[in-house]
């Protein structure tokens, strides 16, 4: 099951050229761009690992693409996303975030039901990928 998080996730995967143009847009707006990766695809997992420091004061996407390629080489089977952070007062938040790499096979999610007091049912999601310990998922 293909996970859909962040921008463009309902579209076919972006090509490198399209990623470059998106980053160019972010840089044009003076947003700091960083690269993050994770192997826990749960939608509420907002804290992904950072690939290096966020990149400030860049003028051209080539440097960020270099980091994206390096990250892909190291973690070809994990989710990698590019995030653009806007530090303007009043915003101070990510303005863009999109996935640039995903594992070849995404096993998807299981729906868990928990019976609680008064025959109430609580629902939650569980990613099949996270059955295995960190670092051994998606192999």
């Amino acid at each position, binding site marked *: 099951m293909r996970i859909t998080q962040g921008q463009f996730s309902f579209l076919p995967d972006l090509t490198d050229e399209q990623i470059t143009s998106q980053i160019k847009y972010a840089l044009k707006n003076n947003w700091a761009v960083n690269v993050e990766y994770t192997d826990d695809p749960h939608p509420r997992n907002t804290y992904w690992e950072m690939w*290096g*420091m966020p*990149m400030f*004061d*860049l*003028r*051209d*996407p*080539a*440097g*960020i693409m*270099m*980091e994206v390629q390096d990250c892909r080489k190291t973690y070809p089977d994990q989710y990698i996303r590019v995030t653009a952070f806007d530090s303007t007062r009043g915003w101070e938040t990510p303005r863009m975030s999109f996935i640039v790499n995903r594992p070849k096979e995404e096993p998807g999610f299981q729906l868990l039901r928990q019976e609680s007091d008064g025959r109430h049912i609580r629902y939650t999601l569980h990613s099949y990928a996270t059955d295995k310990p960190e670092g051994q998922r998606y192999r």
Partner: protein
Amino acid sequence: MNDIPDSTPVDLNKVYEESNIQEVLDQLDRELIGLKPVKSRIREIAALLLVDKLREQVQLRAQSPSLHMCFTGNPGTGKTTVAMRMAEILHRLGYVREGHVVAVTRDDLVGQYIGHTAPKTREVLKKAMGGVLFIDEAYYLYKPENERDYGAEAIEILLQVMENQREDLVVILAGYKDRMDRFFLSNPGMSSRIAHHIDFPDYTPDELLEIAKLMMAGLNYRFSPEGEKTFAEYIVKRMEMPNFANARSIRNALDRARLRQANRLFASHDKALTRQDLLTIEADDILASRVFTQSSNQ
């Protein structure tokens, strides 16, 4: 490639006019005095890039040329100034995408402890991508007397990016001639990856006077006729003295002349001043210089 016949006409003039390169070259001629070898090399590079553009139109693809450069020359011969210009020229010719200059020295590239250098150098390289990375006094990167110096690490990363991502950035090294030569001797890899070694000649007294006049015009000052004559004498005298740094010495001399002019105007406060007085540097302002008093003592 074969579907375009060899006899296809190409329009060099059109590409030439579209690039506005003549404007940049003219500006270079106007604002940079002397520096013949530098200008001719820039012209050659511009011609090459234009022809490459034409070749691309008729699908004669070639690998983009390596444009890493090394500027050597004495202090004050305009290395930094030309580097700043170079970025603009390469941008106009479409060789670099953004055309900004990131000027760094050893401090910005080399870290203070193990594992600090690589991220630091990479960060600088990423900032410079799409433009020009100008490394001033590049020979400080390599310190042969200390084998544990991290400079070598920075050089290694630099070389790697210079080789693999030459379409993303242009590296310009600058420094004094003799020390740069020694630097290249101990780093042959660096020397061979730099296609253009440009030597900046010292200026002649006439060129220095031209430069002085240009600087003055930029500051909205001008010499009186005697002032100009005196300044020409000053240049000849100053060139014989130690620590002469070409255009930089001239700029300093002009700054001091401005001080003296201001002082002179203050001293003559009972006289009515005009715009002309504020504008003009007189011979007296220059004659008061240390250069004249010292030589008359000898």
